[in-house]
């Protein structure tokens, strides 16, 4: 098999039958090309959607309250449910399914930001230090709110980059004071995230927000991260358990979506990824199907070749070719054609996907295309290797029948003068 002469013999056959070889290889190249394009596109879509999820921790969950819509234990519907700091402590201490917790108090009305002569109205978010990790807040300078800020209800603020720009222009904002309405806050950090739509949010400690803006212990929403689970069902049951706990504390029906709303990202994430798993399997099936069509094509052409070459094979056998050497000749030719053609299809397919990827990256770098649900539409190394193995195996499969047929050619039958 690794005899140079065998290969020379095969190459000289191929070289003298170029068109035939090309036609044979094309179907295989096409099959693997399609597989790569499909797999790459599938990956691109998946990565695009993953990217959307990646704006937050995948295991984040938000909760908010409203008015009850179902009567509960003699209590009428239409009661307003309100979270408070005790709920924070409950979530933090009692529920072992939860990891991080951050509460938010909505500041009343429009808050006017003032620095020297510059002013404007901007959105403010109040939170616990944990929010940085949960919502992946990125800082360009300074630091985020810490436990000390929270415990001492310090008047500190993490400014959104565009707010900083509006108020401070070219000036460095860290350590300076901005007024929120009439209250001065010390700037401790600047946050910026190019991918984030709500880049306009600035952050202050929730305790400070409650104290300064008359919130007492009122909490409007919670952001929590749940423990990581692998199935949507487990994620859903964590949601149900959290709801159960809150329902008990505030006396509403756990099924009452109006009384307390919640969104568990992890459950959605797992469901979405499951869809992609299905898409991937589907793509493989289609791809393999296309490839099988290619293999059948190669096998067919090789069969015709063997028939065409019956006389040649007969001559070879008369001159001393053993059945094994004839099998080797046909099989290796088939494997060689499939592998090389397949490799070309692979390269072209991967090349095109890389090209699209390059274009996407350029577009993203230029600041556009952030709404495109398509990222890194490439095929990984393992998949490429798997495909190559499939190719070699399919080459052998494609060559097997024709090779056996060739080996069975009887020299006398082949050499008989038909004319």
């Amino acid at each position, binding site marked *: 098999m690794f005899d140079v*002469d065998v290969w020379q013999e095969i190459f*000289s056959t191929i070289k003298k039958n170029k068109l035939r070889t090309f036609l044979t290889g094309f179907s295989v190249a096409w099959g693997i090309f399609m597989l790569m394009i499909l797999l790459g596109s599938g990956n691109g879509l998946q990565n695009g959607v993953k990217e959307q999820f990646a704006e937050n921790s995948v295991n984040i969950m938000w909760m908010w309250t409203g008015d009850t819509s179902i009567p509960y234990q003699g209590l009428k519907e239409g009661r307003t449910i309100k979270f408070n700091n005790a709920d924070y402590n409950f979530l933090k201490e009692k529920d072992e399914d939860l990891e991080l917790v951050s509460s938010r108090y909505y500041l009343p009305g429009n808050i006017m930001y003032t620095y020297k002569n510059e002013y404007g109205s901007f959105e403010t978010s109040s939170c616990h230090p944990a929010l940085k990790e949960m919502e992946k807040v990125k800082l360009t300078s300074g630091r985020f709110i810490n436990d000390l800020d929270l415990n001492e209800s310090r008047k500190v603020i993490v400014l959104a980059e565009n707010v900083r720009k509006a108020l401070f222009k070219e000036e460095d904002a860290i350590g300076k004071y901005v007024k929120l309405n009439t209250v001065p806050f010390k700037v401790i950090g600047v946050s910026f995230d190019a991918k984030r739509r709500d880049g306009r949010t600035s952050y202050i400690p929730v305790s400070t927000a409650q104290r300064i803006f008359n919130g007492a212990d009122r909490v409007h929403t919670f952001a929590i991260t749940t423990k990581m689970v692998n199935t949507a069902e487990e994620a859903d049951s964590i949601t149900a358990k959290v709801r159960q706990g809150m329902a008990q504390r505030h006396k509403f029906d756990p099924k009452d979506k109006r009384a307390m709303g919640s969104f568990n990202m992890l459950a959605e994430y797992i469901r979405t990824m499951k869809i992609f798993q299905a898409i991937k399997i589907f793509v493989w099936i289609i791809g393999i199907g296309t490839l099988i069509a290619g293999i059948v094509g190669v096998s067919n052409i090789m069969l015709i070749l063997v028939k065409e070459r019956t006389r*040649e094979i007969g*001559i070879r056998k*008369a*001159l001393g070719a053993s059945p*094994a050497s004839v099998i080797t000749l046909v099989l290796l030719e088939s494997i060689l054609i499939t592998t090389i053609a397949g490799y070309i299809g692979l390269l072209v397919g991967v090349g095109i996907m890389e090209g699209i990827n390059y274009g996407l990256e350029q577009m993203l770098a230029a600041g556009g295309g952030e709404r495109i649900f398509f990222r890194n539409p490439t095929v990984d190394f393992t998949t490429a290797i798997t495909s190559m193995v499939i190719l070699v195996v399919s080459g052998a499969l494609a060559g097997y029948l024709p090779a056996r047929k060739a080996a069975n050619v009887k020299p006398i039958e082949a050499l008989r*003068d038909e004319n």
Partner: protein
Amino acid sequence: MIQISNLHKSYAMGSNSLHVLKGLNLEIEEGEFVSIMGSSGSGKSTLLNILGILDDYDRGTYYLGGKLIQGLNETKAAMTRNEMIGFIFQSFNLISFKNAMENVALPLYYQKVSRKKRNQIALEYLDRLGLKEWAGHLPSELSGGQKQRVAIARALISKPQIILADEPTGALDSATSFEVMDILKDINNQGKTVIIVTHEHDIAAMTKKIIRLKDGVIEEVIKNGDLQLFKERILTE
């Protein structure tokens, strides 16, 4: 060299079978130059194919060089053909996409001789047959006589003890036929056993022994000394 006794061969033709060789006995010594004659369909090619281990037989025995040739598997048969027998066919049977040199070198490929070496040997043989300048040409670019000389070179290159030729001059004009026969005569003079099938009397007359087949057995063997007689008989016929 060749001992055949009570050789039977029949071909299956649907439900019935065609009995071609019916208990044929034949002995050919080393270095003989034999022609096999007989009417069309008398089994000449069948006999030659069995001699060349291209086909098997039903009954009897066939010894080649002292070895019983019977029920060999394909691999063994191929090896024996490669080592002991050189074939020359009526229709040349050159491989169309290989040039003259590569065609001649092919038997050595199956003896695992390196490419460089076998091509060099092939060139020597082509030179001997006066075809050196044609080494790089494809069979389609050669005349019938040239093709047959390439085929002879190919038959000789593996240094077989026996050359089997089925109507080697069948596709050639008479002048070229005589050239080819001269070459075969030379080969025979160098000690090789040469067996040809022909139905041309003047070709047969150039060999040293004529075997006439009829009804699946040998009807007549005409030896060297009787050849003159044979010629005269043909002329009067």
